[in-house]
């Protein structure tokens, strides 16, 4: 099932090119905001799944292209992001030591929204397209083998990154990763049954129609079962948490004012955003791969 949050934060299910509203089926879930409603729906899915399916089967729905989509997860309790978690198409001999960081949950935006580049003197702003896992229930110190019990579904996730901020030599993930509007998620929350093999999905990202990132999740360093297991040993995972599984860095490049950024993981729909920079800064339009081919350091320089 593909879940969406749309218009005035209503919850719906996508059926081909329509969306069927399911608010009347789920409104008894205790909540004081839309984020809490979605997290509660995820947590109590077993109680609502059949009723939702019935509603979808028996309703006409409204055209999907006539609604304003929001992030399907308005307020995940946590955004846990794996760091340096790809083998980079065979250019790494071994996975990097496992590591992660927290990304601010108020930085989330959805399909059709604007990513605002911060005014601080970042050396460059870059795209990082990632497969996101959505946690289904409380998970603490779980075994890798049981990982499917804890994954509700999947989302496209972009970890917009603001480089060159923070303190050299110190973990600087907070200024780099937690800037406001730097966490696009969407357009759908796809339930796990639609994605039998998340370890074998093509992830693509375009800037202004040009393909920049094009990699497969089989290139992941620490695989999904290990990611779920390890994340749950550090902190208790909660229903609705998102674990971003990392990115293959070859297709990273600068984001600039006016850019149109799209990302699609197979089966998860297409996430589309506009980039805005009030300072209208310009960078050389080159990806890490293009720069490496010329023997240049990966990050594009400012013009």
């Amino acid at each position, binding site marked *: 099932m593909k879940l969406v949050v749309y218009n005035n934060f209503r919850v719906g299910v996508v059926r081909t090119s329509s969306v069927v509203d399911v608010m009347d089926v789920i409104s008894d879930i205790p909540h004081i905001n839309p984020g809490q409603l979605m997290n509660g729906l995820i947590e109590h899915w077993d109680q609502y799944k059949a009723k939702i399916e019935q509603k979808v089967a028996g309703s006409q729905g409204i055209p999907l292209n006539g609604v304003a989509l929001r992030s399907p997860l308005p307020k995940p309790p946590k955004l846990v992001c794996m760091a340096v978690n790809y083998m980079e198409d065979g250019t790494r001999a071994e996975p990097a030591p496992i590591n992660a960081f927290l990304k*601010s949950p108020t930085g989330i935006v959805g399909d059709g929204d604007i990513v605002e580049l911060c005014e601080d003197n970042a050396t460059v702003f870059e795209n990082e397209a990632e497969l996101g896992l959505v946690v289904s229930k409380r998970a603490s110190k779980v075994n890798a083998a049981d990982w499917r019990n804890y994954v509700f579904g999947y989302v496209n996730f972009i970890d917009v990154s603001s480089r060159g901020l923070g303190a050299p030599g110190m973990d600087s993930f907070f200024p780099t990763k937690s800037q406001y509007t730097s966490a696009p998620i969407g357009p759908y929350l796809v339930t796990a049954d639609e994605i039998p093999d998340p370890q074998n999905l093509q992830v693509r990202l375009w800037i202004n129609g040009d393909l920049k990132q094009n990699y497969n999740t089989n290139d992941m360093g620490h695989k999904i079962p290990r990611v779920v297991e390890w994340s749950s040993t550090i902190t208790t995972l909660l229903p609705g948490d998102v674990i971003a599984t990392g990115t293959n860095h070859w297709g990273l490049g600068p984001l600039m004012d006016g850019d149109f950024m799209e990302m699609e993981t197979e089966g998860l729909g297409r996430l589309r955003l506009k980039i805005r920079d009030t300072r209208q800064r310009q960078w050389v339009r080159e990806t890490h791969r293009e720069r490496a081919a010329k023997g240049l350091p990966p990050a594009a320089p400012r013009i």
Partner: protein
Amino acid sequence: MKLVFYNDYTLGVLQGNMVHDVSNAVKEVPHVTPQDLISGVIYHFDVLRSKIEAEASKVRGIPRSQVRLRAPLPRPTHMVNMAVNYLENGAIKEPRPINAFLKSPEAVIGNGDTLVLPPEKATIFHHEAELGGVIGKPARNVSAANAYDYIFGYVNYVDGSARGLGNGSFYWGKSYDTFCPMGPCIVTADEIKDPQNLRVRMWNNGDARHDYNTNDMAYNIRRCVEYATHITLLEPGDVIAFGTNHQGIGAIQDGDLVEMEIEGLDRLTFRVKDDLHREWPRGIDHNMADAVAGRNRPAAGAPAR
């Protein structure tokens, strides 16, 4: 006013040694979780304050020894922790570039609870006693000049830290479940005349550890609020921890009883448990204190951080 949660997350006002149930005064605050309730109370405090005060004087108090105090902020959306934010009593001449990290909200425990060391092979586990500022309203792009308008109050805050894991990763070192004791109460800002001049003390099994003043901060409270809110949107009930002075840092290990007190914020007490019963030297960890202060020690190598 000192706000507490007690027993089954009943909202109370702490007056001296008595806890007064004020749930009636906040019945209309929409909430599902205890954090929803305290965040809502904080956000609408200007409207609720007089009702809460009236209720507190109306109801009989219960001696605090007869209740179980809980974390007053059980699960903020953000716990922003300033990194290396003290000048270490004059040892650091130039502040490091300003920096911070997020601590997992699942790490929170309250007064009287137990911090549990994970089995991972940390080189050592440390306490870090910090002043916590509680955000009072949605805070985005707040100027230093206006910073105090956004602080609802203050709380004792401990940044439990595992060293030697993950090569300096703040996530790995700082976000374990139970690694954030906070409490016992939120003290409203009007009770703290000068938060930039507060004595912060900590004891382990009665022995002195941290003993520093918040005037030793590298980046002051105003700057920290400005910094954090220029990066992201903070919400009512979020916490900014302003860092620690490492000159009184020490190990936490199985069986410890740790206390911290910031002037005017009451005393926070927690226990430490380690199923592996690992042992570290007692007293102040001078290797760590010296490393942060930039002093070289001839003795066996200091841990990386």
